[in-house]
């Protein structure tokens, strides 16, 4: 549990901000009456008198309540869900170490998932996915109305490695991500993954709480993570692909990442 210092912008309200951080609209008093807001409450009197640039402290009490990791024939499946309500500023981030089997257009063993960027943001789910969750997540979570602000789901897999490659050790750290402008606070992190032997035997790993070093690596990977794009055009009859991995890391794009203060 920690508090976000939220700078109020035009048109924002206590109940509206609360809803973006996972509260019911009706629970605005939990925020307004928080002792951390005592000075602000004395200054403004009523929530309706909130002014632009006021700082409202919003308690973030949510934590993961479901952690279901299962071994699959060729990998593992992980379902992670938090309590509280959905909220636009509540999300998930995941960093991955793909060991000896990086896949897809991004050849790096380390990445921010989606490892080949499916948008330019550091979050696990895209805005389109939050608006319309993939059918497999509905089935996997057992909730046809699943909300991806509250639910993380993944099912990584690989071919069995060759004997020369040795056992594939796929690892990830997933965290609840709280968004405050371009600052992302990650907490309630979990290390998970699987080992896959050359004989094709998969064993789940975790979930467990990350060590301090792993947590730092998670933050560093998030800072160095990239959105990506490709551009192509035709010139003098030649089709030209500029395969650019976005040179701007999330950090260079202005995103900051931290653990709770």
């Amino acid at each position, binding site marked *: 549990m920690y508090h976000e210092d939220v700078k109020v912008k035009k048109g924002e309200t206590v109940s509206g901000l609360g809803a973006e951080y996972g509260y019911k609209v009706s629970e605005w008093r939990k925020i307004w009456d928080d002792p951390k807001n005592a000075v602000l409450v004395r200054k403004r009197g009523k929530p309706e008198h909130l002014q632009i640039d006021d700082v409202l402290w919003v308690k973030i009490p949510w934590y993961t309540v479901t952690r279901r990791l299962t071994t699959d024939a060729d990998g593992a499946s992980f379902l992670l869900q938090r309590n509280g309500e959905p909220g636009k500023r509540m999300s998930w981030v995941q960093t991955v170490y793909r060991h000896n089997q990086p*896949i*897809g257009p991004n050849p790096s063993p380390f990445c921010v998932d989606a490892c080949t960027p*499916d948008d330019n943001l550091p979050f696990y789910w895209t805005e389109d996915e939050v608006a319309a969750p*993939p*059918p497999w997540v509905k089935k996997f979570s057992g909730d046809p109305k699943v909300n991806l602000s509250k639910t993380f789901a993944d*099912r990584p*897999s690989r071919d069995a490695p060759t004997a020369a490659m040795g056992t594939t050790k796929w690892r990830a750290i997933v965290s609840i991500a709280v968004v405050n402008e371009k600052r992302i606070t990650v907490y309630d992190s979990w290390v998970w993954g699987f080992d896959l032997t050359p004989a094709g035997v998969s064993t789940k790993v975790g979930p467990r709480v990350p060590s301090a070093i792993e947590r730092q690596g998670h933050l560093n990977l998030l800072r160095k993570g990239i959105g990506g794009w490709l551009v192509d055009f035709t010139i003098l009859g030649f089709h030209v692909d500029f395969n650019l991995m976005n*040179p701007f890391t999330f950090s260079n794009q202005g995103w900051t990442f931290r653990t709770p203060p």
Partner: protein
Amino acid sequence: MLVAPAVLLASSCAPAPDAPVQAVQKEETVPSKSWEKLVDPDRAAKVQVVLRVRLLKREGSDKMGWDKVKLLGVIKNESRFKFAGEFEVAHYSGEPGVPDGESTIYLEPYNKTSPGLWRLLGGSGQSGASHQTQAAGSK
């Protein structure tokens, strides 16, 4: 610091238009394009690209899985992108990808900024592939 872009150049090698027609051409089998009719029109209407492909390899999944396919034919391509002979197609980790053998795949952009990256319609082989046939002796 800016990263220097890697540039790939590709060009088609069409014969010169005035090249003499050789007699041996008469003996070549006319390529069958029966696959052109192996299409679900409802799904085709939802996407820019419909291709006939053969699955070469399932690479595995992180959040997204990637399948390497061989292009057998273009049924519809309303994008500006020209597909190579072999390329990768994405699907969600929890969804099936491109089916074994030959199939018709319906592709939507992988993201909003990468014209060269594609995923199966709905991120799934269930909605993004049809008309699977096991090609005998195919690789």
